[in-house]
């Protein structure tokens, strides 16, 4: 009997349960945490319009955006390079979820201010959430004196408002898309038949080509358009090139403007007959 006990004892000691790999134990001991999905888009713009990405906390970014004239203007205009619209902007991360920006476009001497707030984040892990939602609001003031001197435009008549809900999903590390329901209100329109309020829906995508280069596209479909101009939906293609500290975007767009109220509701370029504006966005973070 004693022999049996001793045998059992020896066997038990020698088994000693080391079969489980130490790394497996660490796996099982890893706390289950939420993982916020980052870098759905690389820049704060998909191309012309905003992406859900915010400036980070207390970061100040200086953005220079440029759109040249239409490529199909030919050699005389050096394929559009003679003409340009430039927007300078300072954009600041109030915190990680709220970005405020002020910009000035040379086109129609327009000033714009915006706020962008990250409402919901896409998450994986314990409390996963399938997509991200941000809210965007902007006010633009047109200061170009293109009115009849006898009929001076008041400040309030020069105002434009934009509200957007940005809904984005990073489907995989290399593909993201964003749906952007948009509302634009113009205090002044050219003729009475032009709508003051325009609803539009944007679709933007990002396809990662290499670790630092992605191909983006962006389309805004407007449900109503101004009658006084031959308005067209905005379409843009471009690449994001990331160079360490900043993102450099090269863009081909049928709109010359870079603020929502303009490229969504005032664009007349026909992309497929060559009304294409080459442009870029560069940013420097401080």
């Amino acid at each position, binding site marked *: *009997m004693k022999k*049996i*006990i001793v045998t*059992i*004892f020896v066997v*038990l*000691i020698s088994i*000693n*349960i*080391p079969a489980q*790999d*130490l*790394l497996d*134990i*660490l*796996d099982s*001991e*890893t*706390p289950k945490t939420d*993982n916020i999905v*980052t*870098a759905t888009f690389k820049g704060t713009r998909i191309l012309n319009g905003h992406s859900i990405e915010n400036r*980070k*906390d207390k*970061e100040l970014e200086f953005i220079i955006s440029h759109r040249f004239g239409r490529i199909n203007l030919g050699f005389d205009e050096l394929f559009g390079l003679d003409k340009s619209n430039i927007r300078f902007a300072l954009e600041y991360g109030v915190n*990680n979820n709220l970005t405020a920006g002020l910009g000035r476009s040379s086109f129609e001497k327009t000033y714009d201010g915006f706020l962008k707030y990250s409402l919901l984040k896409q998450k994986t892990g314990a409390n996963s959430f399938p997509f991200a939602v941000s809210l965007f609001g902007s006010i633009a003031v047109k200061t170009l004196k293109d009115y009849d001197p006898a009929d001076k435009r008041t400040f309030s008549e020069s105002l434009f408002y934009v509200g957007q809900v940005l809904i984005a999903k990073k489907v995989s*590390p290399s593909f993201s898309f964003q749906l952007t329901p948009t509302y634009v209100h113009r205090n002044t329109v050219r003729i009475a038949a032009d709508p003051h309020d325009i609803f539009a829906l944007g679709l933007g995508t990002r396809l990662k080509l290499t*670790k*630092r280069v992605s191909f983006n596209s962006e389309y805004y479909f407007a449900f109503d358009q101004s009658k006084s101009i031959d308005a067209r939906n905005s379409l843009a293609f471009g690449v994001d090139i*990331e*160079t*360490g*500290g900043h993102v450099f975007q090269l863009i081909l767009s049928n709109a010359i403007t870079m603020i929502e109220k303009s490229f969504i509701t005032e664009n007349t370029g026909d992309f497929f007959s060559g009304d294409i504006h080459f442009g870029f966005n560069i940013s420097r*973070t401080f």
Partner: protein
Amino acid sequence: MKKNMKTIYTIIICLLFVTVNNAQERFLTKNGSISFFSSAVVKDFKADNNQVLSIIDAGSGQMAIAILMKSFMFEKALMQEHFNENYVESDKFPKATVRGDIVDFESITDLETKAEVEGVISIHGVSKEIVIGANITKSEESIFVKGEFNILLADYDIEIPRVVSKSIAKKIKVTFDFNHKPYKK
């Protein structure tokens, strides 16, 4: 019958002994610290991770470390995003691991002892053999391991674009500090 009971008791006591012994054999920490330092021409930066898991089997001297890449905290959030997105590709390779043996583990005492951990380190999906120098203090209640080593980013297929080559060092200094406590399942 009486004899049988005695046998059963003895076996139970043996079993208890085995389990207790086993529980004391492994030492674990869930909040080990790892920091890394990059010192390049233009700038220096560091990142800290205080949620490193590490385990030591005191019976065999085996050690394993698991490091979640997304838990590295940088001074600038943008750097952290770049680190995860472009350099270590945390979505594809969420963890770095070390699996090794502490050489001459039995000879380590409750006074700080110089030792070496020999094993395999995996970062960014690339595994390499490594010998890490460490200072280890061992007692009944804890195993304390700290030290530092260098890694070459190129060894782990972590590319540095030319434009930032003056801001990121090719050789990164890594320091670690783990206070393992007895692991009870």
